[in-house]
């Protein structure tokens, strides 16, 4: 009950223009304040403790480092070469650079395990370029924030690893299960990009011929080394996902400073400043959102949810729909990890008892949580993109909504057609 009051407060603060980090903070503090009148009050010290705990994570280090690498790429002309290469290959088709972004994210998805890392990596490189070529910042940020949602579905995926251990199901099977759905998402996004391009008359790159095309390809080969390097790190066991972000920074630095010699010392420091400040503002939001998760745990959100669901229906198809709707609503205001911790121990036994395959439901749940990253008011993916593109959070959302809609369509499709998820794990692992 108290939780509902606080959620309403949060929305009011956010829509009245309070900074989102503070809105979450003040709403949470109101919760703690009101709890003092209840039987078991919550100690306000928790509030302060969670702020630091939310940021104190090694995995989050990938965010500033990928943004740093992206800034370096932009400042040293690496981006330009990379885009020329990509657009010489697919840019002349309807959808132009948006296709380049979606495809780039698909490649990155096979390398990185998190949507935020991908948003930071691709967004920093591609958004400025798309702006320059006549796309609105809104549209550019929107399409890339949507495309980054493929990252946690295509293996490797940090979310699948967490889910595997919380729900006690195979991480390997989850990884395999994610491959086809990831491609379905990719194809759906490309289709939407083509549709929007024709409908809105978005710019298409000129199809290059002969020498120009070859020049673009040769020019892009070295920059293409960055993604190849991350793959190499993975294949040869050199670095963890977070560490590979640092390796990309080094590679970009070498390329910019020694190979192309376009990167000045000032440019280097400016890139670092920009990446640090961008990350800092986003982290403040991560910090306050952390509290919200713990408050929901302490308020027994999980129990309330199960009771509600079971009081409505016990038909598996209806329950799946209810769970989807519930997760989407909670996803608007909560981060994936706390949601997973609260709901997995309740939902998996519940749905398992109704005969739903845990791998199938695992995928549905993760996709759901990933989409929570692009729904306002609280969505880390939106925040990172807003900072990278230097536009408002709502702008990113408004630019990306057709793509998000497509992804919600895919979510429904995957919910009711388990075959797509289960065919590969069944063939390969069972």
């Amino acid at each position: 009950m108290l939780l509902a009051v606080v959620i309403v407060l949060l929305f009011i603060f956010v829509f009245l223009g309070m900074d989102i980090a503070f809105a979450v903070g003040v709403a949470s503090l109101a919760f703690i304040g009101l709890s003092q009148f209840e039987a078991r009050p919550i100690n306000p010290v928790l509030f302060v403790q969670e702020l630091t705990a939310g940021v104190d994570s090694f995995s989050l280090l990938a965010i500033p480092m990928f943004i740093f690498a992206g800034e370096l790429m932009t400042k040293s002309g690496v981006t330009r070469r990379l885009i020329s290469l990509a657009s010489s290959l697919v840019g002349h088709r309807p959808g132009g650079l948006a296709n380049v972004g979606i495809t780039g994210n698909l490649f990155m998805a096979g390398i990185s395990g998190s949507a935020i890392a991908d948003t930071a990596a691709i967004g920093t490189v591609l958004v400025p370029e798309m702006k320059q070529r006549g796309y609105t910042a809104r549209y550019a940020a929107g399409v890339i924030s949507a495309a980054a949602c493929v990252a946690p579905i295509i293996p490797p995926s940090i979310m699948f690893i967490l889910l595997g251990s919380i729900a006690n199901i195979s991480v390997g099977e989850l990884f395999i299960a994610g491959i086809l759905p990831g491609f379905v998402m990719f194809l759906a996004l490309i289709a939407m990009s083509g549709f929007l391009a024709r409908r809105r008359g978005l710019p298409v790159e000129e199809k290059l011929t002969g020498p120009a095309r070859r020049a673009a390809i040769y020019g892009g080969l070295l920059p293409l080394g960055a993604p190849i390097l991350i793959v190499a790190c993975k294949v040869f066991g050199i670095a963890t996902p977070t560490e590979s972000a640092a390796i990309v920074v080094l590679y970009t630095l070498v390329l910019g400073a020694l190979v192309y010699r376009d990167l000045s010392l000032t440019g280097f420091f400016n890139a670092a400043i920009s990446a640090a400040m961008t990350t800092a503002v986003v982290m403040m939001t991560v910090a306050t959102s952390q509290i919200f998760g713990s408050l929901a745990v302490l308020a027994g959100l999980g129990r309330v949810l199960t009771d509600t669901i079971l009081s409505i229906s016990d038909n598996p198809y209806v329950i799946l729909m209810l769970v989807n709707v519930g997760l989407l609503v909670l996803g608007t205001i909560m981060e994936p990890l706390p949601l997973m911790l609260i709901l997995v121990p309740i939902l998996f036994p519940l749905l398992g008892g109704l005969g739903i395959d845990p791998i199938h439901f695992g995928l549905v749940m993760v996709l759901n949580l990933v989409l929570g990253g692009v729904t306002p008011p609280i969505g880390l993916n939106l925040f990172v993109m807003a900072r990278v593109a230097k536009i408002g959070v709502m702008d990113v959302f408004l630019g990306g909504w057709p793509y998000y809609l497509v992804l919600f369509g895919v979510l429904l499709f995957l919910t009711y057609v388990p075959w797509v998820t289960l065919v590969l794990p069944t063939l390969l692992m069972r």
Partner: protein
Amino acid sequence: MGKESGRRLTWLRYGAGLVCGLVLITFTGLVLYSVAMRYFFHAPPIWGEDIPKLLFVWMSFIGAGFAYLFGFNIRMTVLIDKVPRNPRRVIEFVMHLSIVAMLLVILWYSQPILKLTARNTVLSTGLKDIWTYLPLPIACVLLLANEVWRLYRIARGEVDRSGQEADDAL
């Protein structure tokens, strides 16, 4: 704002940013160092996870403190932009007051945490745990300064800038 003080602010902004940027460069370098030590020399430093993480916490909170002071933020201004000037000022004044209250709570309840963590040593770094918890109250002081400045401006008849204007000002 006078031209002179404007220039001073620009330098302060650059200086603060530079400190945070240097912290970023440092922990990126340390991550690279531990990868190299592990892969080539089979001798990964035991602090390889904890020191970069500690620097990251510092960069995040101190950076955020300065960033808000210089006008960065993540807000939705679609609705508030449509509210007439004076009611808007009242709403914004109340909201900034509630933020001030929150920051004071953070400062107050940081004390027991700092006292507790001053006793604990992190095995891998040999540093006291308090180093992880210190940046938050420092950031709070910066954020309080920012809030006081904003309240003063609103009291003088202005309204908060929308997100886009704030970014353009940078």
